[in-house]
């Protein structure tokens, strides 16, 4: 295992220490238990938004804490959802009296731990809503699975709900917009290589030099199928078809295209994927009116990428364009 770390046990607290030192104008952190909040939290009268989950997906979620996006982020150990204590502490620290929305990726652990924290927060008189993100079309959504996973589309939910909260929407409205974004975004990913969780010391799966994993999860969970390496355009075809075939995309739609790197894929390759994905989308008669390319929801040093398509309307576009000032996403101020 070759990593730029000290003791595997210290990875999360040391990284959070560096993060808040580098971005002291935007954020501050508590360490016992560990969570990150906007430097100006709580913002009185504003709906607050908290997200969180296992670490190893940076900049998700701490990189999205700041004006116009998240109020708090709760990083668990690498790839392990946080316990209720820090979620509760973050929820209390950001509550500005207008209630708190939890944005939770759909994994049993995240859902259960946030659920417990929400119950405890409610018991302390804080109004809490939850939106569970589940944008990953690689997973069958049925009674016989834990449901679709929440993956890179979560960033779009956080940005757009964050803008709604920032402009003063109430808790119901912010919850509704987050729910809507989640309902309109679909994602699928591919891994070229595995990643190594520091405390495990071994790659999360074995994959041959000429193989790729289609439908990979963001925790190195094996995906839908293992195939031989193909040209970028063919790989894009394999994952964009299931995305576009799924509801709710149709000709004439305005969409946002997100090409998300898994952490170890260079930008030069992500733009090659963007090129072909954009071609396929335009061929289907849709219009890409907004784009995002980069590493936003990563899996440590994994090589690979995911592709997300979000159906836009005027409201979502306006909220997407609204100013945001976080470590990893910033425009308009």
């Amino acid at each position, binding site marked *: 295992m070759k990593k730029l770390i000290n003791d595997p046990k210290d990875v999360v607290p040391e990284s959070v220490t560096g993060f808040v030192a580098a971005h002291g104008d935007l954020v501050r952190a508590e360490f016992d238990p560990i969570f990150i909040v906007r430097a100006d939290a709580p913002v009185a009268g504003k709906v607050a938004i908290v997200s969180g989950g296992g670490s190893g997906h940076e900049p998700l979620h701490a990189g999205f804490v700041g004006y116009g996006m998240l109020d708090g982020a709760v990083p668990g150990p690498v790839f392990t959802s946080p316990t209720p204590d820090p979620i509760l502490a973050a929820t209390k620290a950001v509550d500005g009296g207008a209630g708190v929305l939890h944005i939770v990726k759909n994994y*049993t652990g995240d859902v259960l731990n946030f659920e417990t924290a929400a119950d405890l927060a409610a018991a302390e008189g804080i109004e809490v809503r939850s939106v569970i993100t589940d944008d990953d079309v*690689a997973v069958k959504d049925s009674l016989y699975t834990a449901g679709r996973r929440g993956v890179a589309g979560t960033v779009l939910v956080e940005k757009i709900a964050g803008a709604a909260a920032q402009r003063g929407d109430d808790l119901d409205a912010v919850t509704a917009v987050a729910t809507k974004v989640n309902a309109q975004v679909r994602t699928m990913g591919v891994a070229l290589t595995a990643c190594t969780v520091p405390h*495990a010391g071994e790659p999360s799966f074995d994959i041959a030099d000429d193989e790729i994993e289609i439908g990979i999860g963001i925790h190195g969970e094996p995906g839908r199928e293992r195939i031989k390496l193909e040209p970028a355009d063919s790989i894009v075809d394999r994952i964009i078809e299931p995305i576009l075939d799924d509801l709710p995309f149709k000709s004439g739609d305005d969409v946002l295209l997100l090409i998300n790197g898994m952490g170890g894929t260079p930008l030069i390759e992500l733009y090659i994927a963007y090129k072909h994905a954009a071609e396929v989308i335009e061929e289907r008669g849709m219009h890409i009116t907004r784009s995002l390319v980069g590493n936003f929801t990563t899996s440590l040093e994994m090589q690979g990428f995911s592709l997300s398509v979000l159906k836009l309307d005027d409201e979502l576009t306006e909220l997407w364009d609204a100013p945001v000032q976080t470590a990893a996403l910033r425009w308009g101020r």
Partner: protein
Amino acid sequence: MALNGDWARAWMTGAHESMTAHRSQLISLDRDIGDGDHGENMSRGFDAVAAKLGDLPADANPADVLKLVATTLISTVGGAAGPLYGTAFLKASGAVAGQDELDGGAVVALLTAARDGIVLRGKAEPGDKTMIDAWTPAVDAADAAVSEGADPSAVLEAAASAAEAGAESTEPLVAHKGRASYLGDRAIGHRDPGAQSTAYLLRAAAEAAA
């Protein structure tokens, strides 16, 4: 040993040793069909449990011990296992509240409450390839042993053996809950890590009583 407060402490000390010893194996099982952290999660949780046992008053009864274990696991394990085991121990504590020493029936009540707590939170059914596939046979075996007049330590022994068989029985299954459910048929042939850690937990309970 009588199933009193000392037994409950000895159980947890044994569970701590077992999770430490099997950390890598549980990581490796979870690597195969999950995200490779189950061993780390369980050993982090039981490290914390071991560190807190000393805080208990000398006359703590089994329910007191189980309650401390529950809150400690909830606040240190994380992942799916944290809330599930946490709820299990919380409900188990409630089922034996106030009892200084557990008889066979109380053991069955403890195990049943733990299992039901996990089902309440996780909604898994037997055969879904989860820890429930270790807990449910353990409950049934304990119940049967009590009907046959077994003493409390024999009841635990029966539960532990059934949990071990239950863990093994997850190998041919397709998963319907937890991360392994994303894998479809590719989960076949792999043992569920949570069922295996349940088997270790119940083995530790039986050994502490032996």
